[in-house]
């Protein structure tokens, strides 16, 4: 034996899955939604995506340098945060506001709490909430998709949920499914988001539990609490409207801010669904996905504590 041997405690083999590969998969899964956003809202959408992704990575690099910590941009998590943030923005948002959003997500929410794995809420969602509070008017100015006739007054165009709340014309379900409606640039096309979600399921990045239970809870409540009394609601409208698909597939499933056990995940996903519908139906906000997920994010430590798996052999036997 000429060389020294590695000596370590078992196991000696590791799975192929790495943090970086998981993040890359999320990025790949978001590409259909990003392209749908560009298709429906034009190059302005592409600009916002580029700006948030680049600024997120730059902020991550700079803050780690300032905090004298190792560089972590290689794990691609900053790219994911930037991309998800962009998809949550209206395509008309001024570029500098998008940069402020990236700063809030990466520096305040993620790195000041310790970086990847330590943030207690989803950074992109927290940044979106921050932008809505700070620049409410610009964050809720929707333009019609390029595919819709351009004679409508651009700044008063409503999202489906906005129309529901204000009593406007509701779009048909097919337009809502393919994304031919108003909204944040990456949330409108359920089709593109589902394609990405299936990719994540096939790659084993996420399990079906959170998206299916979350969306199922929203559909069930929408059906039960209908406009004309009990069991008269249209579940498909609520499922396809707003940010539910984006939230349920890509944001509620964020590892760091979701529970560690299957039981916990079920509670968390039902909670997200119930809160979403409460916000949509009983507050003066048209949409509730962001706040629902943020509230469930902060409940995760309690959920984790209450859902420890039962001890093997803990029950009496024989």
């Amino acid at each position: 034996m000429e060389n020294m041997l590695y000596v370590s405690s078992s196991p000696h083999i590791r799975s192929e899955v790495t943090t970086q590969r998981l993040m890359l998969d999320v990025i790949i899964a978001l590409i259909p939604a990003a392209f749908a956003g560009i298709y429906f809202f034009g190059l302005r959408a592409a600009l916002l995506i580029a700006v948030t992704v680049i600024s997120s990575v730059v902020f991550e690099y700079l803050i780690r340098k300032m905090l004298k910590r190792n560089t972590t941009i290689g794990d691609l998590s900053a790219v994911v945060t930037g991309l998800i943030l962009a998809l949550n923005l209206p395509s008309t948002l001024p570029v500098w506001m998008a940069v402020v959003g990236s700063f809030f997500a990466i520096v305040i929410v993620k790195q000041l709490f310790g970086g990847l794995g330590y943030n207690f809420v989803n950074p992109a969602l927290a940044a979106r909430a921050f932008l809505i509070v700070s620049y409410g008017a610009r964050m809720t100015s929707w333009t019609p998709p390029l595919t819709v006739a351009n004679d409508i007054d651009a700044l008063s165009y409503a999202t489906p949920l906005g129309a529901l709340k204000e009593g406007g014309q509701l779009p048909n379900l097919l337009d809502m499914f393919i994304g031919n409606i108003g909204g944040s640039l990456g949330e409108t096309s359920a089709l593109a988001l589902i394609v990405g979600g299936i990719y994540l399921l096939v790659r084993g990045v996420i399990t079906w539990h959170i998206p299916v239970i979350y969306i199922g809870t929203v559909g069930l409540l929408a059906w039960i609490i209908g406009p004309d009394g009990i069991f008269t609601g249209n579940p498909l409208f609520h499922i396809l409207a707003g940010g539910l698909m984006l939230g349920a597939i890509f944001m509620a499933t964020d590892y760091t801010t979701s529970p560690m056990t299957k039981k916990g995940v079920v509670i968390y996903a039902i909670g997200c669904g119930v809160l979403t519908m409460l916000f949509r139906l009983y507050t003066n906000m048209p949409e509730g996905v962001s706040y629902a997920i943020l509230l469930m994010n902060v409940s995760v430590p309690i959920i984790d504590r209450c859902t420890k798996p039962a001890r093997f052999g803990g029950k009496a036997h024989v």
Partner: protein
Amino acid sequence: MKFQGFRGGVHPPQAKNTMECATVRMGIPEKVIIPMQQHIGALCQTMVKKGDTVKVGQVIGNSDAYVSVPIHSSVSGTVTAVSERIISGSNPVVCIEIKPDGLQEVSEDVKPPVVDSKESFIKAIRDSGLTGLGGAGFPTHVKLNPPKDAKIDTLIINGAECEPYITSDYRECMENTENIVEGIKNVLRWTGIPKAMIGIEDNKPEAIKKLKKAVENIDNISVHGLKTLYPQGAEKMLIKTLTGREVPPGKLPSHVGCLVMNVASVAFVAEYLKTGMPLIKKRVTVDGSSVKTPMNIEVLIGTPVGEVFKFSGGFVSEPAKIIMGGPMMGISLYSDEIPVMKYTNALLALNEKDGKIPEENVCIRCGRCVSVCPMNLLPFDIDRLVKANQYDDLDKYNVMDCIECGCCAYTCPAKRMLTQSIRLGKDALRRKAKK
């Protein structure tokens, strides 16, 4: 009978490259090194000194302690050294080094034992030097003699062989089928256990078929194909899969009426009762990315692993890591001078790419470690506490339940040393309990 299976588990690459490699017998090595502890329990005292001549099957180490087994010479020759060496772990163990004379003269003590009662059977098993051949090395005679209040109703024969690479138990099933069945009959007869169940993972259909055929006229022995899922062969998981029973924390299988033996162990019992030749050889799978010709080799206990690799045809690339046992639970060796021992079932040599230790990244709380843990632990939490030296908080996490199967660390995308942290935690708790 409903097969319930266990929760969690992982699917590492099976790499059973040597399934069709019939066992090749390796000759007498240039020297053998026989450690005085190859089992769980008390260390053996040396019975020979430097310069003594020994014969095959002669007892060269023994202990008065109940939880211990004698150690026999695997060769005839001259004792050239009795000295302490580091084998694995950090504690030196007394080892007897013997230079074989090449004659393989058999000791006069080697003769079939007289067995006419449970007591004489258990004594014979102790004299045979048998320890669990599956890898843990627990003395078999202790297992066969459970506490009086334990009512054993099922003998479970472990042929799961869930670790990647290893096929030595599979070859046992294929090449030594009759002895497996005969050994089971012997154990059932002398212990009074009413029935036996053989469990084999369903990635070995030929072994299942062959054993099913061998027991088709025997009412109280059944063969069961098990889902291929690591760690199916772990004692607690195997019992759960075959009987639905969960061994309570800190208890032995006898607590739930089960006794688990490896296929190679029962086959050895049959052979020993016929010949009286104690445990001096082992079937070992040699494989890994650095090995030129993966194969199954019958090796004399005490043969330095380097000689075994040489016999197999050597390396295609300089090995970066040498493992005794499987890649999930085996022990990595610091030298190729370490000998094959009773519990050795595989020798793996991994190249730089497979052997290097990956860099640890931060936990992203993906939950994979929790979902794969067959013992329902929270490895990420234990890891966090251990790394922060918060040993006092460990009590609530059932750390001692860990079977060290390695699923958590295997599956971790951040490549965290989760199993390794849990071992540290267990050690800290053991030391705390001693105080």
